[in-house]
């Protein structure tokens, strides 16, 4: 397939998904569920940027999401600014956390995964600390009724999804995305070939953090009442990771499939009996790692078929 056609196909899929989520809001009444779909579609692609393209798997990805949610809330609560300024603060908070955690990229594999999880927990312990109640409301949660705007925040979330999907399309078809994959596969050879390893990883890491922060911010805006336990819930990381791996990292369609299939099943059976779902989930992960470690799309890619 020609490169131009590949880009058109990728962009077509991205547009179709965004259009679908936009239209569904008028058709289907459970807005919160649709909003959660958009969040996980975005988060799993954000994780795709760091894991799929650089091989770093941050278990504490939720830390950026939580930082975004609190970045938004603190600015809106204390400075009474409009919600869009809050969104800027959400992105900035996640970026600052990303910069603070840059040294973690010196670690590899499991060390990185666990250290990032510990970092997310540390941020949670600080935010939820009763000693800081006057600033963060501690463990008692945040209420942002002043800026509550379900419709606007839904479309802002949709715009973040669109931006993220376009970013992934660009990474998959650009020189920079190729250089990231080269670093992932063999950083020494990539460096010898003139690729700036540190710069590439840093950019991917900060982009990924920024996306999670924006999603966290729009979550705070849309929900408007939440607790630190929700904003730093480890299952946000876990769900995104499983969706990504189930579909297949480094592709555009893999994480999308993962979210639509697994989160779809979750919404059908998971809400009523979460433990049965948790068990099925666990079993699915085990089988996946043992028999299909490269995700659903590897059924096709192993046969030499290119998956968008």
């Amino acid at each position, binding site marked *: 397939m020609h490169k131009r056609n590949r880009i058109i196909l990728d962009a077509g899929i991205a547009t179709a998904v965004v259009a679908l989520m936009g239209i569904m809001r008028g058709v289907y009444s459970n807005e919160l569920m649709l909003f959660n779909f958009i969040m996980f579609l975005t988060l799993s692609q954000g994780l795709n940027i760091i894991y799929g393209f650089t091989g770093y*798997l941050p*278990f504490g990805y939720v830390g950026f999401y939580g930082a975004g949610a609190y970045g938004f809330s603190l600015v809106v609560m204390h400075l009474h600014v409009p919600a869009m300024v809050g969104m800027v603060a959400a992105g900035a908070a996640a970026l600052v956390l990303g910069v603070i955690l840059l*040294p*973690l990229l*010196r*670690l*590899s*594999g*499991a*060390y990185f*995964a*666990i*250290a990032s*999880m*510990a*970092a997310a*927990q*540390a941020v949670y*312990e*600080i935010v939820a*600390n*009763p*000693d800081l109640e006057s600033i963060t409301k501690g463990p008692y949660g945040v209420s942002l009724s002043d800026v509550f705007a379900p419709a606007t925040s839904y479309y802002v979330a949709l715009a973040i999804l669109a931006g993220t999907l376009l970013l992934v399309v660009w990474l998959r078809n650009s020189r920079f995305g190729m250089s990231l994959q080269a670093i992932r596969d063999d950083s020494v050879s990539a460096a010898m070939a003139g690729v700036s390893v540190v710069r590439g990883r840093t950019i991917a890491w900060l982009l990924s953090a920024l996306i999670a922060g924006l999603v966290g911010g729009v979550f705070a805006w849309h929900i408007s009442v939440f607790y630190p336990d929700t904003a730093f819930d*480890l299952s946000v990381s*876990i769900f995104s*990771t499983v969706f990504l*791996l189930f579909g297949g990292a480094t592709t555009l369609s893999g994480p999308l499939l993962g979210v639509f299939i697994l989160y779809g099943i979750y919404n059908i059976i998971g809400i009523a009996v979460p*433990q*049965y779902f*948790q*068990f099925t*989930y*666990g*079993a*699915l*992960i*085990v089988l*996946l*790692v*043992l028999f299909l*470690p490269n995700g659903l799309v590897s059924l096709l890619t192993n046969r030499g078929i290119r998956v968008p």
Partner: protein
Amino acid sequence: MLTGAIVAGVVFGLYYTLVGLGLNLVFGVMRIVNLAHGDFLMLGGISAWFLFTSFGLNPFVSVGLVVVVFLLVGLPIYYLVVPRLLRSRDSEMLSLILFFGISQMIEAVTTIGLGATERSLPPRLLGVGPMVILGTRLPKAWIFSAAASAIAVLLVYLYLYRTRLGTLTRAVMVSRDEALATGIDVNFVSAVAFGISLALAGVAGVFAPFILGSITPNMGVAINITAFAVIVVGTLGNPLGTLLGGIIYGVSLMLMQTYLSSWANLLPNLLLIAVLLIRPEGILGRKTRRA
């Protein structure tokens, strides 16, 4: 107050050594991270609770049963999962995800079977009244839990350094490929190490109600972070380093709780990040790992 915190810290440190030891043994031998370690610990605690409430068994008795059962359960789990996992491209990374799946299954089954309530055991089971060490009054339950932990750690040491299978285990730790080439049955050695690791988690679980207060089906994740902090502070893959890591962790936890109690929960996370960044090879480690 300072002596008190340090004495209590050493007592807790011995227990945390036990919590981390099994995880470290598996990492040392197989280079995989058992993220379900905390859940096996939880199952050990549930077993002790069940054996006491149904048959009135004292934890000192049930600990023996738990060791045997967990050891035997470990062997088939190893053969079902690990050899296949080790053949994959990035087994260290995939192990995190795989054992996370197992941990979710254990948590779900326990919650379905028993509900999400907290379970605890009366501390009097391990002896009544406090004991005074260096002028510090500590509950007997703590002292005996720490003593049991110390015994378990000692037994692992004897196994690794005084038995033939232990020598083979250390050979596999140094190099899995070379051990295989020398004709060592690497899979059997690893399976036994895996079984021992689960048994250690089980023992830690039996004493968990006395040290940690209670058992809940979802306690696994927090335990894992603690266990990981302990073994990283020691040295990953070095079972004896775990003792050092455990004591450092226990003492700093008690100091935090004495002087800065509301921030004590931050400690395992910060300790873990700090050690990983400043000295990723751990306190006893040589520079071997490339990050």
